[in-house]
């Protein structure tokens, strides 16, 4: 759908990233702003592989989506803490400004959208699956693009909504972006958003109709991604216009 090309060499080197700022996004999620000498400009939706090496030489490697726009000064990764994980407890709890670790990227040309691809743009996120979609929305704003865009974003509770204030600000720019939140495990008294898991009715009522042929990107936990992708096909969206990124066993 996006006429992705592989012309750019994919060969990657391990680079050294330095943490220049830490942002507590939610009680569980932290954003790391990174300075990465040798970094090549990424495209929104791409990810990096992070490699941590213990003193005894043991290495653990995980993939994280890039949350920042290509136009930003630093690369942002947003990491959700998985208590039994090997990598995320370090990245969300122990990491300090000035720390360095290895990463390679940007990686992957499949789950990618740029303003040049055009719209409409229909994004579906669950939890920290918002990260690569946020890169797309930040890029859309930086590029001053105005094609219609909808973000349907599922969180457990209000306090778990990542980038909440920035999403509010993006949605009030009047540039064609609509943000719809849904909370699945309780909501504030004055909540105006949705209050259930993303389902076919919600994708139909709050999303972009199949007739508009939106480019669709879904990112989140596997059950959410698979159910949303299936529902969207049932609603008439072409499989070729639906791109998915599931969190899997390597999230952690």
């Amino acid at each position: 759908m996006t006429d992705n090309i592989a012309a750019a060499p994919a060969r990657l080197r391990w680079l050294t990233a330095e943490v220049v700022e830490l942002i507590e996004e939610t009680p569980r999620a932290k954003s790391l702003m990174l300075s990465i000498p040798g970094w090549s400009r990424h495209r929104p939706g791409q990810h990096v592989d992070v490699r941590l090496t213990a003193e005894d030489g043991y290495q653990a490697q995980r993939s994280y989506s890039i949350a920042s726009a290509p136009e930003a000064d630093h690369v942002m990764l947003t990491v959700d803490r998985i208590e039994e994980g090997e990598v995320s407890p370090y990245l969300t709890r122990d990491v300090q400004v000035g720390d360095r670790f290895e990463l390679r990227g940007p990686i992957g040309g499949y789950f990618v959208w740029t303003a040049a691809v055009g719209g409409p743009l229909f994004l579906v996120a669950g939890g920290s699956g918002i990260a690569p979609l946020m890169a797309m929305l930040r890029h859309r704003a930086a590029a001053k693009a105005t094609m219609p865009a909808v973000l349907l974003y599922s969180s457990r509770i209000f306090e778990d909504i990542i980038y909440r204030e920035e999403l509010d600000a993006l949605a009030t720019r009047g540039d064609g972006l609509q943000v719809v939140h849904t909370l699945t495990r309780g909501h504030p008294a004055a909540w105006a958003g949705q209050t259930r898991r993303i389902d076919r009715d919600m994708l139909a009522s709050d999303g972009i109709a199949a007739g508009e042929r939106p480019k669709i990107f879904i990112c989140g936990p596997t059950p959410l991604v698979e159910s949303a992708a299936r529902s969207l096909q049932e609603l008439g969206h072409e499989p070729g216009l639906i791109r998915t990124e599931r969190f899997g066993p390597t999230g952690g």
Partner: protein
Amino acid sequence: MGVEPGDMPALDGNAAAGLLSELFALDVTVAHFTCAGCGAEGELGGARVYGGTMGAIFRCIACDGVVLRLVRTPAGLWLDMQGTRKLVVPVGS
């Protein structure tokens, strides 16, 4: 390999882009493959992938047949593509 559907949730082919880049000079997650088993076509980035950083099995969305295996072994990168009849890598003009 010992890794089969059911053992762990599937990922998207895109998730193995880093591993693929250790072997291929171009980003083959955007390549179109033809499944040798059923003839279905798809993008490698959209195939179902099982595995992690040490290796990955790509399975056809249509028939679940194995289209590509790539594993990092002590002897080197081990590639099995007998399940892929054709791989077309778009490189622009």
